């Protein structure tokens, strides 16, 4: 099988799952989500195999894929999608086939030590189909998702999947543009040059050098940004439309974020706190997906704890247990707080958009108080990275400038994931330095790379906030909310 054929298989798997369990009224969005969701589901299946000791080989992998695909198709047929859905899905699939064909023609990947390490470990898993003793310790240094994704090379006749990162980038661009269009629709915005305006926002976002480079760089960051974008946009669209069909897919994305990097579960809890806690969506739509993702993440980090080294500078057994419990603990809290007798907790939940930033501000103040030199050195290095270096250029200056400009106009409903999530995520990055060497000025520095995670979210929000100002009819929801 060629890389191209593998990506089409992953896409078909993901698209069928999105159409079966997700927002099938929006077939183009389902198709844009097809590749990342298909890959996340495959990674989950592979993790289940590896975790339970069942070899993940070409045969077992294909059988598992066929079972999931068949189940999705049966589910989809029961829903009897309209001719419109099939037509749109067919055109979108044709677009995917063409784009993936072009992307898989040439290896443009950028590789560093981390990339080679990921490819060596994924190559070993692809050949053996099992996690050997000693391998868990190696997986503790990085998130497991990229390793699982690259180990799908076993289905191909290539040395490695050089086009995987560009495929993520293409999917992220499609999800960004389609979700922004749907978001403007949901806000009741009627723009004369809507497609052009969305294209400008999309191009301005993904042409930032750091994002462009990471679209080819074998690392965890672009994929984390993609899945975070998928989760936040789908959750926001569900909230604004009070329609829950997107949620199962959103929670698959949260599962993928948790496995991308070793601090993934913390990023998940941050964004879930700002989305799920103040949400008005029904518990029966929220809890199953959240519980499924949490249990899967719990299982993986508990397994990782058995192999993590006590003296690892990245992930010790104690930290593995913490990562295992943090998401499951959050889910337990959500379930408890939505129980009808838990009176004070819903009050707290409604105030999560205030409490979460306050907690992060307090944590940052404490961190600076306790390790002033370490924190100051890291913050200064990071700030320099984000503002004056040739790889970030002025991107963060533009983001901060637009955020300030946004204070002059009404806010977007359900905006907490964006307006609180992005600064809190930056605070989290700064707090993560407490247990490691200081951040430095350099393209390979973790903090410089992790800042990528929220850039698409920032521009997505700016699109929702500023583009309605160009509408020839005022948007209904902007008038209703009117707050800043």
């Amino acid at each position, binding site marked *: 099988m060629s890389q191209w054929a593998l990506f089409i298989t992953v896409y078909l798997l993901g698209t069928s799952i999105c159409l079966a369990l997700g927002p099938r009224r929006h077939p183009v969005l389902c198709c844009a989500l097809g590749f990342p969701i298909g890959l996340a589901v495959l990674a989950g299946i592979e993790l289940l195999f590896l975790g339970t000791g069942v070899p993940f080989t070409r045969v077992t992998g294909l059988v598992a894929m066929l079972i999931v695909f068949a189940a999705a198709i049966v589910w989809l047929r029961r829903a009897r999608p309209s001719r419109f859905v099939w037509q749109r899905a067919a055109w979108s699939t044709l677009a995917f086939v063409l784009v993936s064909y072009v992307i898989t023609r040439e290896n443009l990947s950028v590789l560093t030590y981390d990339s080679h390490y990921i490819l*060596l470990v994924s190559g070993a898993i692809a050949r053996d189909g099992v996690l050997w003793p000693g*391998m868990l310790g190696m997986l503790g240094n990085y998130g497991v998702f990229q390793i699982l994704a690259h180990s799908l090379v076993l289905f191909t006749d290539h*040395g490695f999947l050089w086009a995987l990162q560009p495929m993520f980038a293409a999917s992220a661009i499609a999800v960004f543009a389609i979700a922004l269009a749907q978001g403007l629709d949901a806000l009741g915005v009627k723009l004369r040059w809507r497609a052009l305006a969305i294209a*400008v926002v999309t*191009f301005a976002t993904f042409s930032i050098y750091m994002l462009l480079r990471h679209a080819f760089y074998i690392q965890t960051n672009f994929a984390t940004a993609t899945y975070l974008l998928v989760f936040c946009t789908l959750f926001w669209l569900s909230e604004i439309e009070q329609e829950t069909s997107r949620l199962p897919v959103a929670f698959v994305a949260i599962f993928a974020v948790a496995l991308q990097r070793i601090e993934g579960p913390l990023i998940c809890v941050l964004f879930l706190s700002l989305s799920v806690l103040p949400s008005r969506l029904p518990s029966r739509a929220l809890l199953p997906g959240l519980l499924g993702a949490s249990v899967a993440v719990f299982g993986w980090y508990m397994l990782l704890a058995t192999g993590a080294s006590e003296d690892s500078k990245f992930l010790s057994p104690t930290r593995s247990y913490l990562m295992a419990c943090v998401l499951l603990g959050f889910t337990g809290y959500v379930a408890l707080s939505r129980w009808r007798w838990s009176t004070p907790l819903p009050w707290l939940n409604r105030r999560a958009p205030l409490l979460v930033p306050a907690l992060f501000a307090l944590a940052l103040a404490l961190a600076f108080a306790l390790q002033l030199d370490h924190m100051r050195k890291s913050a200064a290095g990071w700030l320099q990275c984000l503002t004056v270096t*040739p790889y970030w250029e002025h*991107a963060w200056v533009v983001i901060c400038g637009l955020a300030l400009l946004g204070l002059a106009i009404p806010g977007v409903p359900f905006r907490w994931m964006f307006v609180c999530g992005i600064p809190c995520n930056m605070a989290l990055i700064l707090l993560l330095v407490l247990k490691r060497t200081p951040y430095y000025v350099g393209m390979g520095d973790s903090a410089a790379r992790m800042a990528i995670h929220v850039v698409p979210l920032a521009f997505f929000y700016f699109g929702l906030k500023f583009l309605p*100002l*160009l509408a*020839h009819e005022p948007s209904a929801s902007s008038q209703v909310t009117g707050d800043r």
Partner: protein
Amino acid sequence: MRQHTRGSWIGWLFVLTLLGHASWNVYAFQRNQVEFPPDQIVRPRSRQLEVLAAESSMTVVRHTFASYHRIARRFAGKTFVIGDDHLPHRFSLERMARVNVEVVSGRLTLPDDVFARLVPRALTYSWHLTSRTPLGVILSEHETRYVLVSREDRKVDLLMPESLYTHERATSAGVAP
């Protein structure tokens, strides 16, 4: 004619900012493509991991990781006998370089003069299991067992057929092989 509000001016300011930002991004990309080191820019590359690793500017990748790929290409499925001083390489040799590993207690060494004699027979000295120690490789077509030997000063490693190692060991000890 539509009346312009403060909001619409802010909207146009947003679009202009994005256009300026995007134009600068295009400039920055082409500038960085020229100014950044060749292994850091986006450009067509080989599809062979071994070649990519060998071309890397990072020492560990260029030496250790590239050697795993080279060993995998030439020795996959064969058996390496290593001393316990090379034990840290066991996992990588088995899982990444795809060779079977047998560990014997103690160091496997040969005297300096034997090393000096074997150097010309080595296929290469550009491989490295660790960056500090070059690894010489003596290939034998039908040999399935190889020994990883260190020079006594630990500054050079040599991968040689087990039969050759046994012969040299016996010769240097003054015993007929």
